[in-house]
């Protein structure tokens, strides 16, 4: 029976992939992509993941998991595998897979889609599952601790610095996405602002009024945020209130920074925890709704399979398809960040080693599917509309007439009237130059939902999508600032011991301020950048994220070789080699390329020449010195990432060579075998 399903899956998958391959010069239906994706995931899970689990990781269901051995009813709790899957997916799911594919759509739908599928099945899912397994065998130790224990202090330090930097870049770029969605949009701004008091209300409910009634609190919160979406529309029609929420991007960035700072020093129960419940429910609901709508509506993909921008002059960000499609997709295919979640909370929930495949590999498959849906939502728009929304004013010109002229000249016809009527339908004044991916995704989602559930509510759907992304992003911003704070306190504690105490208020204030200042700086530069800022920040974030994935894969490869499984180490070594090539190539181009759209130093040089010659308009000249400094700083950061990555790889290689030559290496930190006695779990039944 299993063989028949396998063969069937392979045949359907092959037909779908062939369908995609043959539809090269005509519009393709989104169902082809969905079918191909589902079949590839199913095959990957059924065969590759099963083989890796059985032969490479050598999963042993007779072995007691840390949840069973240390069961304390609190953090170590044996949990039903589907419940643990839900928890893990909620933790790895973030706004990254929504933004990355939208930006990568400038190359056409095909390159991004292929990498989301191949990268996830052979790279990202394997990384998540392997790290989850290794951490589970080590009582839930973190990636940094495993790197330190198994490779040496260098690996641990590199993982710490890498995480801290990636966190700062991630928050800055996500903050920029929210700011660009809210700028001069009273409806979006009012709705997003309203989610803050809603979260506080839910927080008070869950802490003070009815402790721990999570479902009840979440349902109340969801009703209120939906009300906020509608209420924002009302604000938009009110002449006075409208002006109150109509802001340009610089003050909005100020709000986001101030908000981030306050949120980071408030207790978690007041804002972070309740908003996280809301965003989890919103994500689960929206993803399900989107999947159902795409299948019901089966829209045509209007973006070509490949655009001319594969040669590197794309308007969203500069850079050729290799290596930048891999850097841009990032989280939807391979996310180094997941290795941090997979080593920590989730391993303490696993009831049986046999569940690792579903929780580790399966959750990432679902995350990757979210990326596929984001790609569909971006590419079903008219390409002209897509580029008009996502191209910065510095690329296509700030006047609508100039922008549509430039975009139409690329072969993607669009008119000012078309953009105006679309903006009007979505309840916005304009959709030009709304870079960052969120608005174009929201337009795509609104078109899908609108066609499925009635076009009369396009404005509501658009702002629902904006709210959904903003709630997500604000959660990440808040949680990320907090994690950054913990890490910084850990580092500062080495300089002056009291600074390391996570509950000492002066230390909390100092470290929170430093972290917020860090991402606030990048956010500020992104906002004043006439090209939109996302074009610089997102590739930098992508490089950092893929570097972290390569560090995680190095740790995994090192442990596999050390534990005598060198024969199968290719499972993590090959994705590692690929990521090392991609990240290094991207970093190299970002630093040395002579094209100012790609090379950071070339851009800084070009800008300072223009500044010195006095050829810049007054507004551009005013911000030029800051942009020049930032581009140089980014180049240095990129170099630092690459150096850290290669240090870890060399350290891993050293450990592997010693082991293969029979020289002594540090002992394994794996917990000793204990037989499992746990009975199969039921949900909600008798314990």
């Amino acid at each position, binding site marked *: 029976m299993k063989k028949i399903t396998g063969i069937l899956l392979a045949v359907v998958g092959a037909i779908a992939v062939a369908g995609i391959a043959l539809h090269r010069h005509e519009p393709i239906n989104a169902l082809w992509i969905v079918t191909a994706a589902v079949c590839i995931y199913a095959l990957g899970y059924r065969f590759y993941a099963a083989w890796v689990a059985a032969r490479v990781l050598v999963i042993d269901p007779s072995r007691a998991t840390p949840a069973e051995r240390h069961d304390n*009813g609190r953090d170590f709790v044996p949990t039903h595998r589907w419940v643990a899957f839900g928890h893990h997916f909620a*933790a790895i799911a973030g706004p990254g897979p929504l933004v990355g594919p939208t930006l990568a759509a400038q190359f056409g739908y095909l390159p991004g889609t292929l990498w989301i599928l191949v990268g996830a099945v052979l790279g990202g899912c394997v990384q998540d599952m392997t790290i989850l397994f290794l951490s589970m065998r080590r009582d839930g130790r973190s990636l940094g601790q495993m790197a330190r224990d198994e490779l040496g202090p260098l690996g641990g330090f590199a993982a710490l610095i890498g995480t801290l930097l990636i966190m700062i870049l991630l928050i800055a770029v996500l903050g920029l996405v929210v700011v660009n969605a809210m700028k001069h949009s009273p409806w979006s701004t009012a709705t997003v602002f309203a989610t803050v008091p809603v979260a506080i209300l839910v927080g008070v409910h869950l802490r003070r009024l009815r402790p*721990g009634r*999570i*479902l009840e609190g979440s349902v109340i919160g969801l009703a209120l945020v939906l009300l906020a979406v509608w209420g924002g529309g009302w604000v938009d029609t009110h002449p006075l209130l409208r002006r109150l929420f109509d802001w340009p991007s610089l003050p909005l960035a100020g709000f986001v920074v101030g908000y981030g700072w306050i949120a980071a020093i408030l207790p978690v129960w007041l804002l972070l925890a309740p908003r996280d419940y809301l965003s989890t429910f919103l994500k689960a609901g929206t993803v399900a709704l989107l999947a159902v709508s795409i299948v019901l509506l089966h829209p045509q993909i209007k973006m070509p399979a490949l655009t001319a921008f594969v040669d590197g002059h794309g308007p969203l960000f500069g850079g050729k398809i290799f290596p930048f499609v891999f850097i841009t997709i*990032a*989280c939807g295919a391979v996310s180094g960040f997941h290795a941090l979640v997979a080593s920590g909370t989730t391993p303490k929930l696993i009831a049986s080693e046999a569940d690792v495949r579903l929780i580790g590999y399966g959750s990432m498959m679902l995350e990757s599917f979210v990326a596929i849906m984001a790609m569909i939502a971006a590419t079903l728009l008219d390409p002209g509309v897509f580029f008009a929304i996502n191209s910065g004013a510095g690329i296509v010109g700030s006047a609508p007439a100039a922008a549509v002229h430039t975009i139409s000249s690329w072969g993607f016809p669009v008119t000012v009237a078309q953009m105006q009527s679309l903006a009007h339908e979505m309840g916005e004044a304009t959709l030009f130059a709304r870079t960052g991916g969120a608005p174009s995704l929201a337009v795509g989602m609104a078109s899908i939902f609108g066609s499925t559930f009635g076009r009369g509510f396009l404005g509501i759907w658009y702002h629902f999508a904006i709210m959904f992304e903003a709630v997500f992003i604000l959660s990440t911003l808040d949680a990320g600032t907090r994690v950054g704070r913990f890490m910084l306190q850990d580092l500062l504690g080495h300089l002056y011991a009291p600074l390391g105490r996570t509950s000492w208020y002066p230390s909390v204030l100092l470290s929170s301020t430093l972290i917020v200042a860090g991402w606030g700086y990048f956010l500020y530069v992104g906002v004043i950048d006439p090209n939109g800022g996302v074009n610089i920040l997102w590739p930098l974030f992508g490089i950092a994220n893929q570097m972290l994935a390569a560090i995680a894969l190095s740790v995994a490869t090192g442990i596999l070789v050390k534990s005598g499984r060198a024969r199968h180490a290719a499972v993590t070594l090959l994705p590692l080699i690929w990521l090392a090539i991609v990240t290094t190539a991207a970093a190299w181009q970002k630093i040395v390329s002579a094209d100012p759209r790609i090379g950071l130093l070339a851009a800084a040089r070009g800008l300072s020449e223009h500044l010195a010659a006095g050829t810049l308009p007054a507004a551009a000249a005013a911000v030029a010195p800051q942009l020049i400094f930032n581009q140089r700083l980014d180049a240095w950061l990129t170099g630092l990432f690459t150096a850290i990555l290669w240090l870890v790889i060399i350290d891993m290689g050293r450990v592997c060579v010693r082991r293969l030559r029979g020289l002594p290496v540090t002992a394994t930190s794996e917990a000793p075998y204990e037989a499992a006695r746990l009975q199969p779990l039921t949900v909600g039944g008798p*314990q």
Partner: protein
Amino acid sequence: MRTVRAVLSTGLRWLRAVSGDDAYERYLAHHARTHPGAPLSRRAFYAQRETAKWGGISRCC
């Protein structure tokens, strides 16, 4: 009618388990099985759970 109710109650049980709504009941059951003495109050239990959850990296990009 009975099957509809059974499906709904199973659904609710799953939702409660996935969202953590039933965590306190599971903690009480665990406590009764393994520890003598009084368990934490509902409020104290959730307070502790939240602090533990957000003490580390629990949210991704």
